[in-house]
């Protein structure tokens, strides 16, 4: 029902797509995988008319579409809808208004039939597999609920092709399951779905076919059963990759960070106490909304605690602002790095040095050559795909922007590093690199707190695992005693037997 042939696209000299072909059948989930910067998002944007292709052909329902004139409005008429990783709703409008906004036509002065609007919203939500009140404000919805609203919008627009660009990157496993149910329902009604994800497990549970992109070219398209996970990884990277976690035992040193009774009612964090030692990775597991990010923000001075104490190397410290935290040897890599991490208008080099300008300065002046050398080192370590380190961060693919933000904090060589979802949105190869860098840092005596919603990552990298539930740490489990079932049961507050069932 949708065929793209020999699509080409260059951005100011960067060849993002070098002749990609792709097709989608009705009632099919077709996964699109590839390393960061392979061109997945670019292909999606071309199909939805958000960016213009240089060359190539597109057919929808056997009818040629003029790619040179394709606009987002025209793509919508053709029944193509897109759902981004970050839902783009209007937070101050209700769900039904959000849905109506893109669906209702007619003059600006027509009368609004509120009842019909709400009814339709409810109906569409039901078809998208959810039953929440359409009168709620979009801003009060959780991330997966917002995604459902986007899907409802797509169904309402009569979309027969739905493109999803990393829809699960900020969801936990349980929420992912819910999204999958919705996707399966859509598939049964004959909707074609293009699904982009870096989580290969998802691809293998959901997709009917898989297309692999590498450096802007199609490497292969195969039905799910015809390839193995390892083959996919190999084709994505163009080389063999280690698939095990690079975890080596480190003898932990003295206690680096000691948090005692940290409480903030506004942040929803209650009486949290834990320690992290030098050379140790403490995994912070829990559901989305269990207060992990808020806890990190309290420690880093982004929020003020009501009560509690923070000791660094045994000394009580007062942290009122991020600058205090940085001075005390802390670093925090935030979760939503595209919005809070990178400064899009700055070159990669300036982004890398931003939190640590002193290291590349002499007599108070930033030395451009040293700055570039620093950025260059991280570009290689983290495999950041960029034309050069003086290119603006805004020209990078999503995953590569994530890596730049990560580089900034690794460059500060902190004593205590807090990572919030460190490998979200990065490809398998880069994930292994990031884990490798983490391991190297603890071997040099750094203390690491890693927040992650990916259970394998938590289990694979942590020395101890603190499980958060409803704003407090409900248990701290040693690596040796940790099983997926146990962690999950703790996070959900259910007996282990039930969680495994």
């Amino acid at each position: 029902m949708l065929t793209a042939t020999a699509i080409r696209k260059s951005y100011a000299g960067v060849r993002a797509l070098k002749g990609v072909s792709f097709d989608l059948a009705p009632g099919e989930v077709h996964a699109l995988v590839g390393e960061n910067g392979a061109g997945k998002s670019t292909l999606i944007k071309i199909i939805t008319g958000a960016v213009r292709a240089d060359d190539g052909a597109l057919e929808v329902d056997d009818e040629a579409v003029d790619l040179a004139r394709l606009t987002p409005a025209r793509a919508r008429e053709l029944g193509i809808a897109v759902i981004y990783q970050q839902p783009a709703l209007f937070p101050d409008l209700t769900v039904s208004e959000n849905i109506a906004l893109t669906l209702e036509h007619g003059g600006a002065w027509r009368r609004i039939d509120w009842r019909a609007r709400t009814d339709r919203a409810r109906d569409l939500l039901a078809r998208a597999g959810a039953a929440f009140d359409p009168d709620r404000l979009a801003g009060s919805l959780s991330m997966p609920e917002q995604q459902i609203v986007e899907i409802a919008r797509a169904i309402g627009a009569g979309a027969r092709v739905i493109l999803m660009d990393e829809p699960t990157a900020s969801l936990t496993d349980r929420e992912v399951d819910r999204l999958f149910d919705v996707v399966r329902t859509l598939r049964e009604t004959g909707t074609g779905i293009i699904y982009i994800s870096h989580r290969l497990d998802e691809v293998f549970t959901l997709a009917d076919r898989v297309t692999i992109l590498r450096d802007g070219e199609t490497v292969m398209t195969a039905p799910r059963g015809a390839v193995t996970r390892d083959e996919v990884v190999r084709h994505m990277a163009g080389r063999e990759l280690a698939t095990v976690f690079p975890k080596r035992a480190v003898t932990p040193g003295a206690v680096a960070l000691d948090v005692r009774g940290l409480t903030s009612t506004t942040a929803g964090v209650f009486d949290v106490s834990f320690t992290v030692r030098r050379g140790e990775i403490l995994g912070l597991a829990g559901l989305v909304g269990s207060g992990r990010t808020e806890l990190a923000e309290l420690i880093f001075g982004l929020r003020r605690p009501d009560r509690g104490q923070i000791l660094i190397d045994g000394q009580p410290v007062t942290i009122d602002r991020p600058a205090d935290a940085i001075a005390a040897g802390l670093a925090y890599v935030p979760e939503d790095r595209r919005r809070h991490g990178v400064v899009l208008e700055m070159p990669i080099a300036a982004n890398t040095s931003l939190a640590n300008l002193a290291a590349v300065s002499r007599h108070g002046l930033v030395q451009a050559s040293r700055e570039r050398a620093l950025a260059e080192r991280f570009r290689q370590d983290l495999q950041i795909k960029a034309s050069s380190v003086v290119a603006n961060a805004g020209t990078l693919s999503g995953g590569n922007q994530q890596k730049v933000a990560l580089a900034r904090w690794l460059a500060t060589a902190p004593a205590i590093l807090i990572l919030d979802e460190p490998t979200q949105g990065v490809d398998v190869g880069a994930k292994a690199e990031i884990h490798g860098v983490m391991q190297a840092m603890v071997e040099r005596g750094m203390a690491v707190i890693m927040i992650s919603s990916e259970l394998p990552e938590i289990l694979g990298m942590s020395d101890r695992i603190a499980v958060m539930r409803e704003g407090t740490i409900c248990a701290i489990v040693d690596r040796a005693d940790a099983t997926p079932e146990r962690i999950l049961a703790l996070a959900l507050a259910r007996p282990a037997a039930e969680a495994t069932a």
Partner: protein
Amino acid sequence: MIVVARHRAELSIALAIAGLGLVLAIRAPGFFVAGNLLDVLLATLPVLIAAIGATLVILAGEIDISVGSIFAVCSVTAGVLAVAGVPLPLVVLIAPLVGALLGAINGALVAWLSLPSIVVTLATMVAWRDALRWITQGAWVQGLPAGFQWLGLSQASYPVAALIVTAGLALAILRGLTQVPAGRAIYATGSNAEAARLAGIDTRRVRFWTFAAAGALAGLAALLNAARFSQIPPNTGLGLEMQVIAAVVVGGAAITGGRGSLAGTILGVVLLGMLGPALTFLGVSASWERAFQGAIILVAVGVDALRARRVTTMVPRREPARV
């Protein structure tokens, strides 16, 4: 290659200036007579200094429309003090200080009360201007002491000194913006305040100090302007905010902050500053000056928008709803 791409905005204004210069050289060579160039220079330097301040504020993602009023308050204060017999060096010091103080008021309201800068500076613009009108009752400051004009220098040496001071200031800030951590902090704050905050930058202090600096620069500009005349009208600096913001925008800076350069602003000031005298020399009625200015601004932001559109296709500008 990269150098050209990075400085495309600056290059195109430089070309526009060269083009205008060429037309003048052919059609009205009288423009390049030393006396005229000197006049243009002396009139442009104060605007340039105020525009440097506006650049800092706009790069930090804010806007200051009270510069004209601050400029007027500083001009009148300097004049009144000089008439009262305060020694000249002290007057030279006090004018920028008064400006810094007024700028700091803007900055404090924006940074610590989180008020939108357009509202704050609109209010202070009106407040200072009306206070001045009320206090002076519209009277010009007259009877300035002999040394006040040309700030104690000779008429011949003053332009050189003014040029050196302005150039030194511009160069220092130009380097500072790219090479001193504080300059980086301004760009980072204007481009993505949240990321800047997380990187340990105190974005409030950045906002406060850029406003204070803009005020101080407006005070200095007022001084250099007042020195050209033998009396000071209280309505001086009317419309200055438009002149300097226009120069910054023409210079390729994003009005939303985070992108732009001081070099661009300087070229923008030169282009817009040349325009009026050039039109006069070319025999175009002076009433066309504003229309031409408007056209130049539209072309500049139009080009900028086209460029921005190509870049932002990558990052949807819509703000996602947050939980």
